[in-house]
């Protein structure tokens, strides 16, 4: 049978999403039954010029991970969109910006100053900095220009579906490949061994390919009374095993974060930090969790006449880093206002 064509590409990425694909282990051989991988820089030697030579829409599914933050990633994102039937935002960077999205709190200039001038180990008396065009004795060489702002994939091209997570869990990767392949051609149904999170029918365009419910639904920790008076940072207490971390005053983003990772972090005794992004009906992840948390802080104190909400709010030391750790570029905030 005619196999499908897949492409995997990375924008401003850490490479974790490529490893995540390998973490489907033997099921990668099932993927090879469904399709050929025509472009995957980490593992294969296809070059950009080879992609440019492909006919439009000849790639069935392109999985793009990493965010768009320079000319190169923007160019390849648009190129792959042109060459592909389905463009998938793979992983948190492409989906919502992820941790490098926190660079949106700064701009090129301040970061440049930090790295090339102020870093304690850098010796740079002449203040040299990398430049997009530079003359070497042999000619002029280029490196792509950097944008001030980290963007998600759908802020740059039309995205068909997103697979969330930093990185996505192998089971949702397999479920997504299974659903996409079966939709392109029924004959591919049933080839992938889907262990969990099976997608019965591919949802309408634009959807996130993971269950539409928060982490708490799957979390093995027992949830009881949520009356939080004191917030503990993870190094300040050893939590009681088996009990909800948020109940114990440790901030856990689980209530606002989409499930689909088998609650890996809670299984290791640590709280969810929100890498799977929000559910469909509460798209602004940071604000949803902030509201949920602050509604439950100091409930008993509220009735006292000397109730001071600041006493509780001040315990949250780094709100942006806590609530928008992965989702800043995709959120209503997007970035810090730049002075130009």
């Amino acid at each position, binding site marked *: 049978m005619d196999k499908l064509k897949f492409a995997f590409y990375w924008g*401003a*990425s*850490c*490479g*974790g999403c*490529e*490893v*995540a694909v390998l973490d489907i*282990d*033997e099921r*990668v*051989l099932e993927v*090879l039954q469904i399709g050929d991988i025509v472009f995957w820089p*980490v*593992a*294969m*030697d*296809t070059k*950009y*010029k080879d992609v440019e030579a492909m006919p439009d829409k000849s790639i069935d599914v392109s999985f793009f991970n990493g965010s768009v*933050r320079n000319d190169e990633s923007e160019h390849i994102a648009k190129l792959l969109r042109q060459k592909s039937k389905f463009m998938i935002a793979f992983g948190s960077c492409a989906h919502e910006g992820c941790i*490098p999205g926190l*660079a949106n*709190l*700064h*701009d*090129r*200039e*301040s970061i*440049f100053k930090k*790295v*090339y001038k102020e870093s*304690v*180990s*850098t*010796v740079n008396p002449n*203040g*040299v*900095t*990398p*430049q997009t065009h530079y003359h*070497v*004795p*042999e*000619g002029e060489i280029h490196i*792509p220009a*950097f944008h001030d702002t980290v963007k998600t994939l759908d802020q740059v091209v039309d995205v068909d579906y997103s697979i969330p997570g*930093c*990185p996505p869990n192998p089971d949702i990767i397999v479920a997504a490949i299974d659903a996409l392949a079966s939709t392109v051609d029924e004959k591919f149904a049933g080839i992938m061994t889907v262990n969990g999170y099976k997608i019965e029918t591919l949802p309408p365009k634009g959807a996130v390919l993971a269950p539409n419910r928060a982490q708490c639904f799957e979390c093995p920790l027992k949830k009881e009374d949520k009356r939080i008076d004191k917030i503990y*940072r*993870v*190094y300040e207490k050893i939590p009681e095993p088996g009990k909800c971390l948020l109940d114990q005053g440790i901030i856990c983003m689980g209530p606002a974060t989409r499930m689909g990772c088998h609650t890996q*972090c809670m*299984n*290791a005794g*640590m709280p969810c930090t929100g890498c799977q992004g929000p559910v469909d009906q509460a798209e602004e992840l940071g604000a949803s969790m902030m509201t949920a948390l602050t509604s439950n802080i100091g409930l008993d104190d509220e009735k006292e006449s000397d109730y001071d909400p600041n006493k509780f709010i001040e315990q949250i*030391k*780094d709100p942006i*880093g806590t609530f928008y*750790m992965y989702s800043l570029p995709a959120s209503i905030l997007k970035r810090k206002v730049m002075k130009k």
Partner: protein
Amino acid sequence: MKRVTIDPITRLEGHGKIEIFLDDKGEVSNAYFQVPELRGFEKFCEGRLAERMPLLTERICGVCPWAHHYASTKTLDMAFGVEPTDTAKKLRELSYMGYYIYDHILHFYFLGAPDFVVGPDAPAAERNIFGVINKVGLEIAGEVIKHRAYGQRMSAMLGGRATHPVCGLPGGISKGLNEEERATMEKMAKSSVDFAQFSLKLFNDIVLGNQTYVDLITSDAYTMKTYYMGLVDDNNKVNFYDGKVRVVDPFGNEFVKFKPEEYLDHIAEHVMPWTYPKFPYLKNIGWKGLVDGPDSGILRVAPLARLNASDGMATPLAQAEYERMYEVLGGKPVHHTLATHWARLIELLYAAEKAVELVTDEGITDTDIRNMDLGEPGEGVGIVEACRGTLIHHYKLTEDALIEKANLIVATVNNMGAICMSVRDAAKGLIHKGVVNDGLLNMVEMAFRAYDPCLSCATHTLPGQMPLEIVIKDVKGKPVKRLSQNL
């Protein structure tokens, strides 16, 4: 002047391109290894909760997140003045060996081996893991996939997940092992020892048994005489998780051995205008440009360098292989860059043996995994060996335990000078009379591939607009006016 571009370079972690310039005679006048990526971690980590640094910095690299996770955790140990419990230290090192097993298997089989198993100038479409699978057969492919997965599963048992783990805490680790988990891990570790030995045999048969490859490895194009750096334990044996940093000179003599917190006395970074990563060098030798030799501060890290900088391996089977390699390649230190692939497999064996040693330790299932006696937040330095080299994290904390400033010197970047030189030398050595083809270009790429570069790590930084300063001087040379932008 003709110019050949390889864009993007492939079968490594990260983005890069190589520009090769040919003169009129068709010889290579120079080649530039450029890395275009940047993200800016050192800046946007400022103001973050200190205990989140293991989670934040590990996103520098999804291939070696564990290295950042533990370098960061150890930095927090020092910054909070807290010593992890013995059980925590063992568990951290055990999970770290899981990471090493997966990562070295990943590099050798998926990234580096295609050049040897399928052939360096085989058609591009076959020069990848799928070509390797076709060549070695599904049974071996299955073993490769299985053991790579073992490495991931071993580390995930403690970290929650293999990529971007969560368990590191100042003073300890968030999760321990119960007997069931320990028994499973023991099986995986023991199987990995066998697989590492199988891999060394494969290397022996396919690479060392092929004279063309041996000639390639020992050729000048791929040889460079630099300083070598790596972490060693008290017996100067290779240790990935902890120890002191040891540097040997190109002749193999110890040049310096320093504690993590002393790194600034020994390592400095140089900036080049045509690529984003910085270039670390030995401060006390100095930056002399992209040249090797004892007078140049350029140093190398990662498997070959680690073995060169040490006096041996701490586990018996790996030690035997270590001795064999130096015997075959003519003594210490070995300067042949491609021998890194061999050193990598010796390290794989060590990691598996070390994992067995730790997982069978009688205290490994103990539950005292956290020392809660933290002091006031201060400053700390944490160093581990990532698969790709020495990784240094350095943070200063505010009184609220937020990050005031962070400095990172990240593994691969220590090799940046060497990589640029290796690519240049390989291009010069391989391309003659203007003959350029896909196979030759791939062999130029092999020069960097041996280093198993992690360019996302190398380029955690983020630069900006070009700074410019114009100084107008009068007839006597005295500055009259200074104009500047973006300084």
